[in-house]
């Protein structure tokens, strides 16, 4: 995913940085589908994002290129606004969420994520083991008609996992904020990878617990 830097305006041929509107003639440009999300939203290419400013920017751009505003336009305008708005929405969805943003950032750095997420991160091994065991107990108790007794225990597990998740996210935000391109980038990159993999795993675990809770409370 190599970032595209400059493009020419289709109308006035002015060469400009990737952006939805030509700085010279203000015509709407069809952004290349592979444009990087930071340039789509026209914010600094840095993983520490000011979320309030990001939202403002997203709203401003939506207000200018949403297809609803081009209903009476030409077929080209409609097509461009549809594709641009789809790209803008996708970029915003990724950048506003710290976990997705972190993953995206590492991908931009050429990291391949996903594969390793299937392995249990060492730091979580003990926790995973305990939770799985407890879940098995709860399921058994439910099968024996003793659902009531498991409820408290399950709530406890859930609260514990949610708490862990919160801590991991805070650590992630913290580490993303330290990215400034200087010496310890390699080290930071490893740290981010580890955090993201732990979050991904914890999320799966939490989902299992939630599913069991739903079954239990509905029983």
């Amino acid at each position, binding site marked *: 995913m190599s970032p595209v830097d400059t493009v020419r305006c289709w109308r006035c041929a002015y060469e400009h940085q990737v952006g939805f509107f030509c700085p010279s003639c203000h015509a709407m440009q069809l952004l290349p589908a592979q444009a990087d999300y930071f340039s789509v939203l026209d914010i600094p290419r840095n993983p520490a994002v000011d979320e309030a400013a990001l939202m403002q920017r997203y*709203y401003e751009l939506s207000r200018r290129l949403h297809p609803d505003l081009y209903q*009476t336009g030409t077929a080209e305008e409609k097509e461009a606004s549809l594709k641009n708005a789809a790209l803008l929405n996708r970029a915003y969805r990724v950048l506003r969420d710290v976990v997705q943003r972190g993953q995206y950032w590492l991908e931009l750095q050429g990291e391949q994520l996903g594969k390793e997420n299937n392995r249990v991160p060492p730091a979580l091994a003990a926790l995973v083991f305990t939770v799985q065991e407890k879940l098995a107990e709860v399921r058994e108790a439910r099968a024996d008609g003793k659902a009531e007794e498991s409820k408290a225990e399950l709530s406890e597990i859930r609260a514990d996992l949610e708490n862990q998740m919160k801590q991991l996210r805070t650590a992630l935000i913290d580490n993303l904020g330290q990215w400034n391109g200087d010496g310890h980038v390699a080290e930071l990159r490893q740290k981010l990878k580890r955090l993201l993999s732990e979050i991904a795993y914890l999320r799966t675990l939490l989902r299992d617990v939630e599913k069991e809770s739903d079954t239990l409370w509905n029983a």
Partner: protein
Amino acid sequence: MERIVGIDLGTTNSLIAVVEQDSPRVIPDLQTGDALLPSVVAFFADGRIAVGQEAKALLAEQPLTTIQSVKRFMGLGMEHVSAEDRRRYRFADDQGIVRFALHDRQLTPPEVSALILRALRERAEAYLKEPIQKVVITVPAYFNDSQRQATKDAGRLAGLEVVRLLNEPTAASLAYGLDKKEEGLIAVYDFGGGTFDISLLRLHTGIFEVLATNGDTRLGGDDIDQRIADRFLLTGMSETLQHDPHIASRARRVAEEAKRALSSEQETRLELTLPEKDIHITRTLTRREMEEAIEDIIARTLAPCRQALKDAGLEPRDIEAVVMVGGSTRMPLVRQRVGEFFARTPLTDLNPDEVVVLGAAVQADTLSGRRKDMLLLDVVPLSLGIETMGGVMSRLLERNTTIPTSVKEMFTTAVDDQTAVDIHVLQGERELAQDCRSLARFKIPIEPLPAGVPRVEVTFMIDANGILSVTATDLRTKRERSVEVKPSYGLTDEEVERLLEESIDFAEEDVTRRLLIEARTEADTVLHATEKQLRQHAALLVEGEEARILSAVKTLQEAKSGEDYNLIRDLIDAVTDVTTPFAQRIMDTSIGEALGGKELSEI
């Protein structure tokens, strides 16, 4: 700019609204003044059809051929039709597409809905005195793709262009936001006759961003009526009597009336008398008794609320206002439970029946290009994906993704030398394909290669209507297949065409009506102009001319209230003829006046 109107095609009632002088207003029936059109269609043996109040009055008399709550059948297959509904109506087939058997006709739910849309359109055309072509129709946010397509089909069958399907709670938020001029996080709790929706939005400087939506498309006031009927009227009767469509229909009607009464009273009388069946039930029903009987139905609305909050990453206390929409929110118990859930008093000052259609009119105004200060950012209500190895639903788009949106994902084969890949498009939240809604299925040919080698890129694109199109490309051969997803139980394009042709009688009627409206409008213009000329330029009239003009005007005025558009046209010509010399003289004089003070060289 062409006018676009907003329509709320509701389970119980339907409405139509338009923006006039920058504010939305509901268009009433010109004769009765009613804003609500009951969503009921009655079919007679002689082929005649009644819609609205007249049809509603026939529910008890001819329950099998009077269709009520047709919205609950939109986009469904027969296997989704409950035993209760199977007793309530006669269907043409046991499986496949839903077709009501009505005397010698068979009609699908979109066809029945189209009759309601036609009635609304007539109402609007009579009021606006101009033909209506483009509409925004609201749908429950939690409607799936099939139900949305069915609604679009209904519009087409009514001769309307549906420029947008708008989610009902989102529409309500528009009306609310513009009325109250408030910003922040709001929840729209929309509990109607047949569907329940919850939507959470952020309102910010004219932007209405939907953060999450959830709901149940088969939960509404109808279920409450049924419960009251079962619990307090039908209980104790033999099964045969309970399942008698006449008795069941009457019981539901009585239940509905009691429910309404108990929104303001503490107790009411239930009375079901059918002497021919030897049924005489009279009893008192207290609000408390009713509430105990329906408590669980109301509780069922809270699970979607919880899920929506979770999806949006919010807590109930984050919500700054709760907007109540839909007739069922008139019930005190509903208000109480919602208030407890969000820990704040819900807003009930907007008319819950009208707020959706008013929002639809506002969005219609934006889409027509008249309004530029507000923008809706809506979401897909349900996750979308394709079936992969082992019958698993592989999600490409998560629910609550803002639309329009697109996503690409790479897939490969599991077996050596496959010559084609089956793309099965699914919608829903379950893990297994079989538990999700099947939206479409198509094959893409690929080059035979060892398993895992082919690369098939699948792209999902969702437009601003929430309608999905899917493209699959074999990256090696660049062969591409794409489909605009058509629902499994909807009408095919050919069927819609055929139905449109079949409804040619309607079409002729439509053309006649349109010509009549146009003729009347033109007559108004001519009459108005003539009257003005007579008033302003009386001095220019010649002997006997005024009498001739007034006589032509009078004849035209009389014809205008009639139905003969040809006669109106002829008489317009007659008025024009008789006024032409007079108009010529006015023109000459005004040019003379305009030139009077100028030098010749200036011309």
